[in-house]
């Protein structure tokens, strides 16, 4: 068992095209560190100055980590971590909107 990380199209150049990657880790920060060990360069695309990049949204089982501890958010085996670029909606420190207008 591990955590499954879903990779957005824009970052798949780092994963040889893989749409998802299985890694271990008990927190989001550990998951991202382990992700970067397997696929070098990913971490710097996601994190700047110790926090999630402004226009990257990360969800653990569909719940936005910015409301669940950020990089310290706990993850468990079997969880799904989804990384998405912000579309009509980015985050400072959290959010915003897609569509609906």
């Amino acid at each position: 068992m591990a955590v499954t990380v879903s990779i957005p199209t824009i970052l798949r150049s780092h994963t040889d095209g893989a749409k998802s990657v299985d890694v271990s880790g008990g927190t989001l920060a550990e998951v991202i560190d382990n992700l970067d060990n397997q696929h070098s360069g990913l971490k710097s695309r996601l994190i700047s100055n110790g926090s999630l990049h402004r226009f990257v949204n990360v969800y653990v089982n569909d719940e936005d980590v910015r409301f669940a501890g950020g990089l310290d958010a706990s993850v468990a085996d079997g969880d799904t971590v989804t990384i998405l670029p912000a579309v009509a909606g980015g985050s400072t420190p959290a959010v915003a909107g897609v569509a609906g207008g």
Partner: protein
Amino acid sequence: MARFDSLRAAVGETPLVGLPRLSPSENARLWAKLEDRNPTGSVKDRPALAMLAAAERDGRLWPGCTVLEPTSGNTGISLAMACRSAGYRLVCVMPENTSVERRQLLTAYGAEIIFSPVAGGSNQAVAVAKQLAAEHPDWVMLYQYGNQANIEAHYRGTGPEILRDLPTVTHFVAGLGTTGTLVGAGRYLREHKPDVQVIAAEPRYGELVYGLRNLDEGFVPELYDPDVLTGRFSVGAIDALRRTRELLEVEGIFAGISTGAVLHAALAVAEKAAGTGEAADVAFIVADGGWKYLSTGAYSDDFYEAAARLDGQLWA
């Protein structure tokens, strides 16, 4: 009193109905606020008519004026109704992958549509509208993503109605678009009941919409206030469609697809409360009815075929 001077005046005061069959327990209850019962059939009548009224009060609009707005449909439909009767020309900028019914309704109400590219979704519609506004300084862009009247409509309407009808409210769940509903109603609710949880349900689209979106640029609506929200869920087309059908089959409520996403998040928080034995009264927004999405096959086709088709569209 159910008499109004005009259709525009008949906005708001929508029913809040219980969902006895979908609620997880007797103490963890779901309540649907039926915003499809507004003049043009969506929650967007509240901000659209409020923005128009504010511009009229400010003397920015008179017959013959051109109103411009980026919209995925409902705001445009609402503005189109009001603009036609007031004698304004309306130009809507809308992503090209929205349902055919929205285009037909806008056209029927006399609005002109300028399409923006699929990739980027509503981001692109906003960008195109801002460019048009710069090219046509005489056009009046109401700009729902940054117009305080949007927030005010929910702060003065949606929020107070919910608290009045459900004083025991513990959670408020709505879709995340302009952020007007969540920030406006959520702010009112938290000012009066600080413990109320304000939960956003954000549509998660297919890869076509996200495309090769650059991680270095993004768009946060000017109205967004991060301090009002307490949680946010990302809901994909499959879950949204599954809940939309469940709401129809189990409770008889025929809602649009975005409501399915909102219900998915509402059920998640209600089930969490039921699991710990906490009492919860979860109010969520039914943004519109299902009529405008019938052509997508969402209600009648094979489930997975319908979900796969939705994935490439802007369904919320």
